[in-house]
């Protein structure tokens, strides 16, 4: 069973003018893949990612997520599925203000039925992104790179099936960006599925497969031949 299976997926926006943000897109993504979605601004990358991330609904076509036909689920079922199966990393971090790093990472667990020790689990994932020393810091007391690592920890805390990252390095300097990519690669090596939106070829080449979009359509779907292994020291130079 594939993780994601889309067929003739469409998304149109209708406020005044009709925008075809996504036209007849079809592809399959398996568990354990690391996919980069590329394309110029306005090509529909975010639109696609929102639908795949169950934040938005398609206007037409079929979307099977983990064997479930998503169009048949109501809003609360989608919310549960997001909570259990999906992790998000946003370009602008989207951490809660006036809240500690630890509480930010615990957040998804508050909405989950999982009877696990939330604090312990959050500390574990924060350790895996190298932030054990920042647990009780407030989000305005840490750097951009650290914020994005908190976001990754938050995406991991519920053992999601897939992590969506929309321009995760967009707001970061190259060193911090490289650190993020390194973490994402390591997570993928550990078996996590990662879907990344970027317009930087350098970042896209860290993935294993690149989907290219233009004007709401998928224009190419290729394996990365020379996959880039991120080396943080390289970037610093």
């Amino acid at each position, binding site marked *: 069973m594939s993780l994601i299976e889309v067929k003739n997926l469409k998304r149109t926006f209708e406020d005044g003018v009709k925008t075809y943000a996504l036209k007849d897109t079809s592809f399959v993504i398996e568990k354990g893949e690391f996919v980069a979605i590329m394309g110029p601004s306005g090509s529909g990358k975010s639109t696609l990612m929102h639908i795949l991330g169950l934040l*938005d609904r398609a206007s037409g076509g079929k979307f099977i997520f983990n064997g479930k036909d998503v169009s048949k689920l109501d809003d609360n079922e989608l919310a549960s599925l997001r909570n259990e199966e999906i992790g998000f990393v946003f370009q602008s971090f989207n951490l809660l203000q006036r809240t500690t790093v630890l509480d930010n990472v615990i957040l998804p667990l508050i909405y989950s039925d999982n009877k696990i020790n939330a604090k312990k689990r959050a500390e574990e994932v924060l350790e895996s992104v190298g932030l054990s020393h920042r647990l009780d810091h407030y989000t305005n007391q840490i750097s951009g790179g650290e914020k994005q690592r908190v976001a990754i920890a*938050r995406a991991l805390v519920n053992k999601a099936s897939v992590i969506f990252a929309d321009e995760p390095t967009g707001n970061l300097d190259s060193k911090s960006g490289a650190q993020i990519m390194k973490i994402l690669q390591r997570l993928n090596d550990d078996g996590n599925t990662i879907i990344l939106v970027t317009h930087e070829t350098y970042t896209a080449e860290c993935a294993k497969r690149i989907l290219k979009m233009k004007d709401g359509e998928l224009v190419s779907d290729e394996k990365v031949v020379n996959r880039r292994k991120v080396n943080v020291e390289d970037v610093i130079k």
Partner: protein
Amino acid sequence: MFKTLIQSVKIATTSLLSNKIQSFLTMLGIVIGVASVIVIMSIGSGVQSLILSEIKNLGTNLIAVIPGHGDDEDPFASMGGFAVTTLTYDDAVALRNKQDVPNVIAVAAYSRGFGTAEWKSETYSTSLTGTTASHIDVMGGELKEGRFFNSEEENRFSRVAVLGNDVRDELFGQSDSVGQKIKVNDYTFDVIGVMEERGVVIMEDYDDQIFIPIKTAQRMMGVNYVGFIRIKVNSEEDIPQTEEDVKAILRERHNINDRSGGKDDFMVKNTAEALDMITEITDSLRYFLAIMAAMSLVVGGIGIMNIMFISVTERTREVGLRKALGAKNFHVLGQFLVEAIFVTLIGGIIGIIFGVAISFFITIGAHLLGYEWDFIISLGSVVLALVVSSGVGLFFGFYPAFKASKLNPIKALRYE
């Protein structure tokens, strides 16, 4: 669920603390509303207990006979504004008859008006109470100097006066009063006694009166009827029987054949009834005022709604994020409702503290002024204040919270 509640309270606290001034102003509406309810309820109970204890001090073994016809449904029916002239001095005398009214202890008749008293260059206007020598037997009261008039003086139309303490002070100051002659409405009276200070008893100031024999008063005012009659009986248990005896005698004397009471030209009331009536009146007054005060909570509620809209707008992205991370609509709804209730509940608690404190100072003030004022905070009014204030939070917080819960996660995340 419990986890979400704790989290919601935590979120609410942070958000309230980050908008300290708005939160404070919003809460102020609730605080004032709740405090007013508490204070009004407490003052109401205080006044009520004051009146009731005065009546009880007089004794619950009193019966009053007032002229005119009234029905129990409408206690004010006889207060039509005209003087009812059906009771006489002889009625009062007849009621003293132990044969006819076995449980009677004393009967006093009253005929009241206003008088201007003069002594040397001093003048003072006050109430003039014409009464029988039995007044003290019925209503109690001590003499500070001299004596009260006796029935002989009463029957001889003597011009003797007993002064209330304030009247004495006003007219005589430091001088001796007993034995002096004063003028009341241009008639000369001998001052024979001064009453001990007694204060206000059931809205009647006993210190600000001049007592004179009833027949003298009737002659001065040119009337032949009495205003009302008071009867003291052995004990409270004897009241129903005595009332029947009184009615029978008065009907006979007034030639009323209808035993049902439908044609009576007098009314018989007892202290227990007065107690009930006063309780009823003060209760309704109290609740009316409390409801008026509670209206201010509605205004406070609109403030809550306002700050909740601000809070929702400020945290649109947060709502989007929470939804993206798996919060369902009811989680978001709950979070904002808890916040609204939290504000009003804290406002309510502060309001209760203020209300109780103010009521307490009022009690102290009343005691300093010499009133037997009880400090009463009923649990009911505290619970009411808490329930109403959190209800206000729930009601006025619901719409903003509902709007937040319906936010589209993507739009919310993109909100600038």
